[in-house]
Every structure is written in structure tokens, then in C-alpha cells.
């Protein structure tokens, strides 16, 4: 049974984003790969062939594209695929130690899945959250930020009980209630957008 057989509306929706041409069909390749991986945890060879047929290309091309990007997997991952950012900004915040701790305490090497099927680990490059280092991503679910030893222990404990905490999305708040930016000292300086003069939405309005 093919994966997309029962998901025609989804497939149609994905194709509708791109031009109705051979090139446009090919554009659906990455979204389709993402669909399969999110559902099955990896993309098998038969799924590659299925996607190739949908996109009007060959399994060779699908594998080639897939292997180019670092977040697609050809092997099954654990239920919780822990991806630790290892690039400099996280490394300066101890990402290497976080990694070593995970590998050691979960007893799982990259490419492996822990015996209970729960965990797999991957070192990844900059996740774009350098202000909240170190950062870890779980599966395709989102970021866990400022993962210090204490927080790491909490997360692992929750995952072992299959209670995945919600991802973090700490938003850097730089603007106070009055719309002015706040210095490190707590002092609000500058002005607020409300003080700026907005141009009228329609031409010919008074200036």
C-alpha cells in the first residue's frame, strides 16, 4: 500500500503551490519527503520510488536530493530523535558536554536507536538559536533551548515516561510596554513607534 494513496487532498494541496509543469511537479519533492518522514520517521526505498513517480522523476534523483539535506533519514530513528546543535555559539555554552552526556546516559551512538526504541541522537550544525545556547531539537517538533544539565535531566526524564514537554519558544522581548527599547540596566530609551509619523495609506492624503 502506498503512503499517499489515501492522502490525495494533501498531495493536491502540495502540488497546488507550484506551477503546473514538469519543473513545478518536481518542486513537490521536498514537501513530500517531509510528509513521509514526519509520519514514518525515515524515508524507505519504496517511499522514494513512490515520491519519484509523483514528481515525475526517478528514485535516483529522489535519493540524491534526499541525501543532500541533513534532516532526511534513510534509516529509522528513535521515537525521540535528539539533535544537538554543535556549532560554535552552542559549543561556547557547553554543547559538547551536552552531547557527551546524552550519548553516555542514553547509551546510544549516532545512527543507532536505543534498545527501547525511544532514543536516537544526531549532532547537527547551527540551528539558528544562538542567543539561547545550547539548543537541542527533538524530531521535527521544535527547539528546546538553554538546555543546561538540570533542564537536560528534566527533558530526558519526561521522554523516558513518554511525556514529551512542549518545545520552547522564548521570545526576546526588547521593547517595553510603552513601545520603547529597554537597556540592560532596565532603563527605557529612544522612542516608541507610536511617536513615528505614519504616511497615509492612500495617495493624495495630506502629508
Amino acid at each position: 500500500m502506498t503512503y499517499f494513496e489515501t492522502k490525495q487532498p494533501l498531495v493536491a494541496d502540495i502540488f497546488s503551490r507550484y506551477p503546473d509543469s514538469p519543473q513545478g511537479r518536481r518542486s513537490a519533492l521536498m514537501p513530500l519527503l517531509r510528509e513521509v518522514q514526519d509520519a514514518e520517521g525515515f524515508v524507505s526505498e519504496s517511499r522514494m520510488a513512490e515520491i519519484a513517480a509523483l514528481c515525475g522523476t526517478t528514485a535516483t534523483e529522489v535519493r540524491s536530493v534526499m541525501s543532500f539535506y541533513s534532516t532526511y533519514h534513510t534509516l529509522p530513528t528513535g521515537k525521540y530523535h535528539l539533535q544537538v546543535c554543535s556549532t560554535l555559539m552552542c559549543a561556547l555554552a557547553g554543547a559538547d558536554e551536552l552531547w557527551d552526556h546524552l550519548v553516555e546516559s542514553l547509551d546510544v551512538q549516532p545512527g543507532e536507536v536505543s534498545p527501547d526504541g525511544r532514543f536516537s541522537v544526531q549532532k547537527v550544525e547551527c540551528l539558528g538559536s544562538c542567543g539561547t545556547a545550547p539548543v537541542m531539537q527533538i524530531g521535527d517538533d521544535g527547539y528546546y533551548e538553554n538546555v543546561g544539565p538540570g533542564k537536560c535531566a528534566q527533558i530526558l526524564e519526561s521522554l523516558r515516561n513518554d511525556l514529551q514537554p512542549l518545545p520552547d519558544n522564548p521570545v526576546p522581548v526588547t521593547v517595553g510596554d510603552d513601545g520603547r527599547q529597554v537597556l540592560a540596566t532596565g532603563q527605557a530609551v529612544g522612542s516608541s513607534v507610536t511617536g513615528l509619523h505614519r504616511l497615509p495609506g492612500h495617495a493624495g492624503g495630506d502629508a
Partner: protein
Amino acid sequence: MTATAPTPPKPITSAKDPRFAPTLYAHVGQAESWTLAYYRQNGGYEPVRRAFAVGPDAVIDEVKKSGLRGRGGAGFATGLKWSFMPLKDGKPHYVICNADESEPGSFKDRYLLSEDPHQLIEGMIIAAYAMRASVGYIYIRGEYVHAAERIWAAIHEARTAGLLGQNILGSGFDFQLYVHRGAGAYICGEETALMNSLEGLRANPRLKPPFPAAAGLYGLPTTINNVETFCAATQILRYGADWHAGMGTEKSRGMKLFQVSGPVARPGVYELPLGTTFRELIYDWAGGPLEEMKAIIPGGSSCPMLPWTDATLDTPMDYESVAAAGSMLGTGGVTLIPQADCIVNATWNLVRFYGHESCGKCTPCREGISSWMTRMYQKLATGRGQPGDVQLILDMSDNIGGRSFCALADACLGPVLSSIKLFREEYDALATTQQPLYPARRRWRDR
């Protein structure tokens, strides 16, 4: 326009200036800031009405006049870039938002995407209208799951409200916008590689010429801008080119999102006028370093490191001043490197990053960076260095620099060459004694 003063006022080059107000990040962090209702309450979708009223050419003129330069790193004049698009060629045109924020040290776009998606959408409608584009794509890095969900939701909201689709706001202008998620490849930040990725291909950079404005996505005229650039365009249409041009320095005008990472009191994103000094950013806004520092990466990892000196700290953060100091403003992602950390180890980390992200298309990057340079650094940093290794790295760099197909290999040489220049003694120590001047230390702790 507002009252014009007889003498031009002194440009704003500090966020502490009472005339400066944050706009790009003004709503980031506010409750429900990502909803259409919130956005509209705060004047949203008025700029696009103004764009429709003045016409596409006037929009390009306004952006030109504002002095806006691309905020993705290269700093190319945005209005000029928009004017490269053919006017009456009868072909479909595309606008693409480069939301593949992957340069280590950069994390500004993620919050624009998740907290103020309508600002971006509006900017893209304005840009598309100016460039006669009928379809837009937001290429967002695959890991930004939350941001992608927010932006999709905002697109649906906008579509339902008639802000996307056919005949937007009765203007007769049609524009469709879609999100395309990446899957983990730094090279997609290169615009032609991004287009290949969008076309479902390996993200190898393409040959230029033809440039995207002539033959881009699907071979059709295309313009790609950074998230922040589109958002700035929204603000320019809202407050005017003169307002934007009133901030910054002569050639670097407007506001910019600067990011601070590394051991500082308040790492994060700060909206400051261009020309603000590193000192103001690091001390006044980010609260100062938590330990003794030795280097600053001024604009994302590819920008050469600058020494932690008063001269550096007093350098204004604009394209020209940072270039004069020997580096690049890049994405404005400022990373501080502590004195107690081994610079070779830190550079190895970045070299490994570039080696991992090399697409493999051209020889100097695939072999020189990905295969060789990473191992030279591994050798040095793991205590197996030999005299001559540093000289070899310098000569390899000479054979790589300016020889590669795209800028990725050169980007890797930014930290390599600058760190050798600034901290040669650390390299020499590893090459001769196999011992780092600054041994590894524990850094993992709770905040």
C-alpha cells in the same frame, strides 16, 4: 511628507537617540502579535494600500531613496536590485523570501517569522507589486518548525481576508504566497542554491550569469531578499524613505537587527540604527561580557574575527566601517569569544561547520575545505600538530580563496585567516608543543 527642516538633521546612529523607535521588532513579544487582528490594530496592511496607491515604480523609487540595503549579509542596494526585474516581458515573475537563516551567530529572522509574520507578508506583497510578480515563496529553513506553522497560518489568514490571492484590496493585483520548508543545508542561503532547492534539486549554486532577475526560479525573472529586508520595506512604505534614510551613516542607512551571542549578560536580538557602535550593542544593550573576551565575530561566522580592543568596540556597525576594520557587517550576528577559550578549537568548530555544509560541487571547497582543512584543524586541536602546519593552512587558504564556485569556501576562510592573524601564538603553540595555550574547560551549566 512631514515638515522638511532647512538643514538635514544629524543622522540617528544610536538606539538611545530619543528620535529612534524600534519598528521591525516593535511587536515581537507582544501577546497575539502574530495574528491578523493584532497586526491590523497596529496599522498593518496600510503600507500596502499606500503602495497600491502610488504605483509600482514609485514603490521602487521609495525603496531606492530609503537607502535600504539587503539585510541577508551582502548589503546590496535593495531598490536597485528590484529595478533589475524586467518590466514588460510578459513572463511570470517570482519573489522569494530567503528565510533559510543558517549563518552561525544569526537568529533574527526566526522571531520576525514567528512573532510578526504579517509584517513579512506585507513586505512581500509590496515587493511583488513593485516587481510585477504574481507568486512568492518563503523558503524557510526546515528546522524552524514553529515559525513555519505561524507563517502558514498568517498566510491563510491573509488569504481569507483578501490580502493574498486575486485582486488584493481591489487593486487589481494578484499575488499568491507559499511556504517552502528546507531540510538542513546552509548552502540554501545562497540565492541560486535556494532556487535549485525550491525546484526539488540538490542545492548546488548555479552559474551566474544569468542572474536571477533574468532567469531565476523555473528560469523566470526572480528576486530574492532576506526576511528582514522585506520587513524593512514594509516599514519604509509606512514611515517613508526619509525616515529610513534619517538613520545610519551615509552609505548604510536605516535600522538593523543585531544579534549578540556568546557569554554576555543578555544575549538576544536588538534593533539599532546602523552606525551604532559595538560598544553600545555589547554593553548597553546586551549587558556586557560575563568574562574576559579576546575576539568578536561581527556579523555571522563567515565574517573575519576582530580583536577585542577599544578600537573594535568603538567601530560603528555599518557596512563601510566594519569593512574598514577588516571584516564585514554580514547579518549583524555578533559573537563574543572568551579569552580563556582556545581560538584554534573555536575555529576548528567553524571549519567543521563549513566542511559539513560544503555542497561538494567544486574542488577547492569539497577537497580543500571539507576534506583537508577540517582535518588540519582536527590535527592541531587534538594535539597532533607539527611545525609547518600553520604555514600549510595559510598556503591552502591561498589556493582556496577566490578560486571556488561560490562564496562558501571564502566564508570558511574568514575565521581561519583572521584567527591566524590575530592569535598566531595559539596556533604556534599547538604546532610546536602540541599543547593549547587555553585548555578545554567545562562550560555546560544551567542558566
